[in-house]
């Protein structure tokens, strides 16, 4: 039960043009978790998913799924893996019902009307079951892709940017869907550009850029490691220089001495405590302030700072 559901080791993909889309990626996915793969355009997210799902032929490394090498067990493995692709790819003239039923049959499962009805209902597609896919809105089409991926009841589900181009309402709806799937024991790997999504959904987050997996960690741990509290004190009177009473804090003056900026902590709350102490220290030193603005760094900041380091030429 504790063995990883998916193990990538040294996974590398060099496309025929010579572009290295995946560079020696090691990754273990645990059964039952939601893993978010975060990265900018062209980072290699889709390539990584494609390598597992049989759309891309890796040029190096190995993939183990459900405890066995994909090279030899691809057939049984694929029957247990679902994929919602990033690109909108549907047979426009097919009806929703047919498309989803076909997906189930293609993956070798016996027809099961009740199951398909359940899937369509859960995705609010039941009313549209006899509509041709071309008649649906973009968000509905995307849900059809999800329904198709769920039709064969996969244990491991890849969602390649499930909420791209989907309105806020629907996005919340999809998060709920994903939660329900997790509750049923489905392991989910999703890619996203929305940090919000990773923060909301994921148990663990992997950050990928230029084909390299820069960091993989529990979402909470990542926040702890890289989390930061930032506070700005608006001063009643400008200061020319920092008084020595404040030297133990990581602060500096900004905006011509009219504001004091604190930056520190670790995402566990130490930052907030220090801001409170700093406020007391200011009062004790007789420095008056008119406002405090504090902010916890999000995954987004972490992401940007990680990628920023990445940009620095070696």
């Amino acid at each position: 039960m504790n063995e990883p559901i998916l193990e990538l080791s040294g996974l590398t993909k060099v496309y025929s043009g010579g572009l290295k889309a995946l560079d020696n990626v090691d990754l273990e996915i645990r059964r039952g978790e939601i893993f978010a793969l975060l990265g900018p355009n062209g980072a290699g997210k889709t390539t990584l998913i494609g390598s597992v799902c049989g759309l891309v032929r890796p040029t190096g490394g190995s993939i183990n799924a459900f405890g066995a090498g994909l090279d030899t067990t691809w057939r049984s493995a694929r029957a247990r893996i679902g994929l919602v692709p990033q690109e909108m790819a549907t047979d426009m003239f097919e009806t929703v019902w047919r498309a989803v039923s076909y997906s189930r049959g293609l993956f070798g499962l016996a027809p099961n009307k009740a199951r398909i009805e359940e899937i369509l209902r859960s995705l609010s597609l039941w009313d549209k079951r006899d509509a041709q896919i071309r008649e649906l809105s973009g968000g509905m089409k995307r849900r059809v892709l999800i329904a198709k991926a769920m039709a064969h009841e996969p244990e491991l589900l890849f969602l390649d940017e499930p909420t791209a181009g989907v309105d806020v309402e629907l996005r919340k709806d999809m998060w709920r869907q994903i939660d329900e799937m997790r509750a049923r024991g489905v392991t989910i790997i999703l890619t996203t550009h929305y940090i919000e999504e990773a923060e909301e959904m994921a148990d663990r987050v992997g950050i990928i850029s230029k084909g390299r997996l820069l960091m993989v960690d529990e979402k909470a741990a990542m926040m702890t490691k890289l989390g930061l509290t930032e506070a700005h004190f608006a001063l009643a009177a400008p200061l020319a220089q920092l008084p020595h009473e404040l030297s133990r804090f990581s602060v500096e003056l900004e905006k011509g001495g009219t504001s004091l900026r604190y930056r520190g902590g670790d995402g566990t709350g130490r930052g907030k405590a220090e801001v409170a102490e700093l406020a007391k220290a200011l009062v004790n030193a007789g420095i008056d302030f008119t406002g405090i603005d504090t902010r916890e760094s999000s995954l987004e900041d972490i992401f940007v700072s990680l990628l920023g380091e990445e940009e620095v030429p070696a």
Partner: protein
Amino acid sequence: MIAWRSTWSIYKRELVRFMRTAFQSVLAPVLTTSLYILVFGGAIGGRMPDMGTVDFGAFIIPGLLMLTLLGETTSNSSFGIYMPRFTGTIYKLLSAPVGFGETLLGFVGAAATKSLILAAIILLTARIFVDYTIAHPFLALLYIMLVAAAFSLFGFIMGIWADNFEKLGIIPMLVLTPLTFLGGTFYSIDMLPDPWDKIALANPIVYLVSGLRWTFYGSSDVSIALSLGITLGFLVLCVGVVAVIFKTGWRLRD
């Protein structure tokens, strides 16, 4: 090992797609072929001398059937695999627990089935205009199935090879149709003047037309064994090519 349920799903879906467009995909070829039979068989045929033991109208039917069969089978089958590549829905097939066997049986089986339906309709329609008989109906059916299977495979390869719509149409238009016309549809090879009757034998379609004609009338330009051999050889060659395509993922998997 073949996953039959997956195979059946592919097959059924392809046939449903065919039924959805049955009107165009059956009517057009039937109409064209009927016109040929009407004009060359019915109208002109009456003034032509008999070809061996059969009259001209009956003589051209196997060739015309072959003409339609080759073109339609190739384009049907090539579309069947090209369209999902074009629209991106091929991801479903590539990520499914199906391999060479299922894909081939599903797509090619469906394309071949369509061709058989088409052949039956054409033969029935032809009967309205021309009085013909089939000497070896069972062999004729077998031969048509063989050709349908071989060219479904050929079309499958074309559909994977093509990276735009133009290429998709080019082989049936530019290669199959001329070769079939020159392949003895309207004449017997030994009616050609000296070097041309030998050169004509380099055209593989000659053997196909000739083979089918043999099953109809019991005689033809080349021996039925040779025709069968060449058709089978082509079938095996195509299976081999498709096997290599799947092994290497050529044009299917990046």
